[in-house]
């Protein structure tokens, strides 16, 4: 998912499938390579054992208000980080860094679902005696309502759930409920039927979109008065555009928290987040202690300064599961010619782009980024301008007019300018179009936009599953006239079939190596010129314990992990 940043330092065996198989084994093993003390101190949620203190008010800042403060609708890292401690789905990602954070554990569900009926039926039970922060009981029907509410609010997340039986019909009519979800309020049983097997469905059940909310929550954006919480904190005040506040959920310690021991209870009593558009001010405020935590990394302009001064004490760069790349539209000249695409791959130099991104991008030349299950490092096109020019000569393409697209956000605009220069050197006549970041993907996702030749794009995973890259970005069958994400418009039948087949299987070691093969096959097509994976960062004030702060692959900073030093 774009903007949804992720940390997974090494891709080892699939934590996800392990959990799926071990079902109710729980995550007690604590096998993570990092700070065991953290998970322990979090688990109890009582007095800090890791050298931190409990209580206090945490002050934080965002550069912009999240897209929505509504679990069913928000589809950005901003929103997910903010609501992570407030809304808990039936399943949840573990509040841990690295690959451990990609592990799916039971959330409001008692245990991991039983998967039957040829991988098409998921059965699970809601925990008993759970309450919302307003004291109302959490019901099994609330889950069903949450899925329906995704469709009713036209949420950007609803496409994840269209494979549930009856969901497509419901999206059209918005009447009669989704027939494929059956709940039993007495036993708390929840049964979900899918149209066809879906290997990513566990991941999707752990997304914020389907976190249960009371059934009287209106079918429209609730950003100004978010629904009651099921997690350790509740949002007490939300002013879209300005900021929001949290307090502890009074029913967490009494009821919910006792059952969900793997979900941390948090350390501070209150959290206040303000929106401050000036990132430089945010940095100053962290330095002076006025703020304790900021969501966005320091601005490029001050990144080095902050890194030099505070790395290790208050600052920690955090890798993400993302790929930055240049796409090449294969349906038109000159990029329909494979030699040209290969030439571009040889010509684009990740080292130069690392510098353009001031070290906040680490060079790679493949589809899957490090940290994603299935990632296996390879490099088909080491930078070689001479070879690139030879390939262009062989291809016979000359003096072609092409348009390069990028967005206004720095340094993506510089990356576009750099890319334009590279293409010019290869002998093309290049026009650069820099569009506003808010519109960029809409414009290039509309296949009828003229002159969509080549350009910049990035992709941040929605959840740690390689299907989230291949199916959306590279499956020829996902090409659609608008909101298209397959910008290269690559449509190779055998590859499509491979993606579709893998999509139905639960992720295991075998599937991972197949995804790795797929990665290489797509790069042999040279359909993209990938150049790197993004690094974000954690930056806190002096009095916050950096050691115990957790950066989760899917949810970035775990607000529940921030504590004041003693």
């Amino acid at each position, binding site marked *: 998912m774009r903007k949804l940043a992720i940390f997974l330092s090494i891709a080892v065996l699939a934590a996800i499938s392990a959990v799926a198989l071990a079902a109710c084994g729980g995550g007690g093993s604590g096998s993570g390579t990092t700070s065991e003390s953290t998970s322990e101190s979090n688990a109890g949620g009582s007095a800090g054992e890791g050298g931190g203190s409990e209580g206090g008010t945490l002050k934080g800042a965002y550069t912009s208000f999240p897209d929505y403060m509504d679990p069913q609708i928000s589809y950005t890292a901003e929103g997910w980080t903010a609501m992570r401690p407030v809304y808990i789905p039936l399943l949840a990602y573990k509040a841990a860094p690295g690959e451990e954070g990609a592990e799916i554990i039971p959330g409001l569900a008692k245990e991991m679902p039983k998967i039957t009926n040829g991988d098409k039926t998921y059965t699970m039970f809601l925990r008993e005696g759970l309450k919302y922060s307003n004291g109302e009981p959490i019901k099994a029907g609330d889950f069903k309502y949450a899925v329906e509410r995704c469709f009713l609010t036209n949420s950007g997340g609803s496409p994840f759930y269209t494979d549930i039986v009856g969901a497509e019909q419901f999206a059209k009519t918005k009447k009669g409920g989704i027939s494929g979800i059956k709940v039993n309020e007495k036993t708390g049983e929840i049964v979900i039927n899918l149209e066809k097997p879906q290997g990513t469905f566990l991941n999707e059940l752990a997304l914020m979109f389907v976190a249960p909310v009371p059934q009287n929550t209106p079918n429209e954006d609730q950003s100004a008065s978010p629904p009651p919480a099921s997690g350790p904190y509740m949002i007490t005040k939300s002013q879209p555009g300005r900021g929001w506040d949290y307090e502890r959920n009074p029913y967490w310690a009494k009821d919910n928290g006792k059952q969900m021991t793997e979900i941390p209870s948090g350390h501070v009593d209150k959290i206040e987040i303000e929106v401050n558009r000036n990132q*430089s001010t945010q940095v100053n405020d962290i330095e002076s202690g006025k703020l304790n935590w900021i969501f966005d990394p320091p*601005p*490029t*302009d*001050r*990144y*080095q*300064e902050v890194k030099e001064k505070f790395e290790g004490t208050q600052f920690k760069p955090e890798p993400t599961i993302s790929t930055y790349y240049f796409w090449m539209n294969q349906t038109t000249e000159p990029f329909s010619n494979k030699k040209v695409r290969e030439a571009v791959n040889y010509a684009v*130099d990740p*080292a*130069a782009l*690392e*510098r*353009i*991104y*001031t*070290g906040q991008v680490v060079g790679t030349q493949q589809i899957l980024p490090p940290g994603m299950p299935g990632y296996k490092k390879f490099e088909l096109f080491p930078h070689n301008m001479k070879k690139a020019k030879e390939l262009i000569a062989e291809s016979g393409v000359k003096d072609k007019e092409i348009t390069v697209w990028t967005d*206004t956000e*720095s*340094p993506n*605009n*510089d990356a576009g*300018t*750099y890319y*334009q*220069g590279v293409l010019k050197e290869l002998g093309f006549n290049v*026009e*650069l*179009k*820099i*569009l*506003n970041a808010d*519109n960029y993907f809409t*414009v290039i996702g509309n296949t009828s936009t003229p002159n969509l030749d080549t350009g910049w794009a990035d992709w941040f995973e929605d959840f740690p599953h390689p299907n989230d890259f291949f199916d959306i970005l590279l499956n020829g069958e996902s090409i659609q006239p608008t909101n298209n994400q397959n910008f290269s418009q690559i449509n190779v039948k055998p590859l499509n079939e491979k993606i579709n087949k893998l999509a139905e299987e639960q992720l295991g070691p075998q599937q991972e190596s197949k995804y790795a093969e797929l990665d290489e096959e797509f790069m042999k097509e040279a359909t993209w010129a990938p150049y790197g994976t993004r690094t974000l960062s954690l930056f806190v004030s002096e009095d916050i314990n950096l050691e115990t702060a957790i950066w989760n692959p899917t949810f970035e900073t775990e607000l529940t992990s921030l504590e004041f030093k003693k």
Partner: protein
Amino acid sequence: MPSESEKSGAETTALEGAVVSPGTGPGGSEFAIVEADSGARQGGGPWAIAWRRLRRNHFALFALGVFLLIVVCCLLAPVWANQVAHTGPNQTHTLEKLHEGGEVKEVVEPSGKAIGPQFFAAGGKFFLGADGHLGRDEMVRLLYGGRSSLFIGIVAAIITTILAVVFGLLSGFYGGWTDTVISRAMDVIWAFPVVLLAIALGIVLAVGGLEIGPIHLKSSSLWIPTLIIGIVYTPYMARPLRGEILAFREKEFIEAAVAQGAGPSRIMFLEILPNLMSTIIVFFTLNIANNMLLEAVLSYLGAGVQPPSSSWGTMISEGFEALYSQPLLTIIPGTAILLTVLSVNVFGDGLRDALDPKSKVRFEARAGSSDPEAIGPV
């Protein structure tokens, strides 16, 4: 906004008192009118007087010199680029190293910080340093950027002047329906916050370019911001001109011309237009200054010159991204704008004094120049 009014001289003054000044009223206009009979067309009288006055104003002449020098420098941009810096304005040097004597310097450090001004240490390469992550030559970009900024400033001023004179003449001379239609159209543009209008147009056109019949403008074309600026400023010049024309219409020399059977176009172009020349010239210079400032604002907001082409406005906004680590990248193009606009303004001031000692159009500065937003407080 303007309004209504203006069907009488009195109200014109009322509305544009600030704008047109008392000039159209009692004081100043006699000067031009008297001259119109005797001299304007022979090219002798008033122009010669004005020139003599201007020549005595060393300050204004100096400013003119500075302005011309800047123009010449910018015109010579390719020479500097090819002969001295050996690079183009959009050429990136991200990974290059610079050999200076025995020293080797990186054009862009791994941290993304660009090399500072080298002056002639590297034979003129990176004279003013590089422009950030991409390592483009700041001096080369400054010179090329100046070409864009000056082009927009001057051409937009020409567009404004032509449109304003045409509309001013039509509406002032014909009155009636023509006047009503034109005046109302101007009212709308006038009440439209200028920058908002310009940016709205700029942003929309930046996506798709402009296609009207046979004319096709690429979204990156310099003509887009130029046209926008030229059009947006038209009412600020057209209204005062119209006011002046209205005043002329009542004068004897026009009545005389009408009595002699002169046609409307003859009267407009041969009788009225020459009398407007000093106003037009003064406006024109002020417009150049304002256009350059508006260009900077538009580019800053992403609706002006489209990268990677440089203009001083785009350079400032790019520099602003690195304000705290490399303030020079903002200061250098800003100073270029300041110097250019200042020289135009000083010269314009002198020109006004010379052409119009009784300050007939003194306040008209307002009309063109200080629509508050336009100039920049924005």
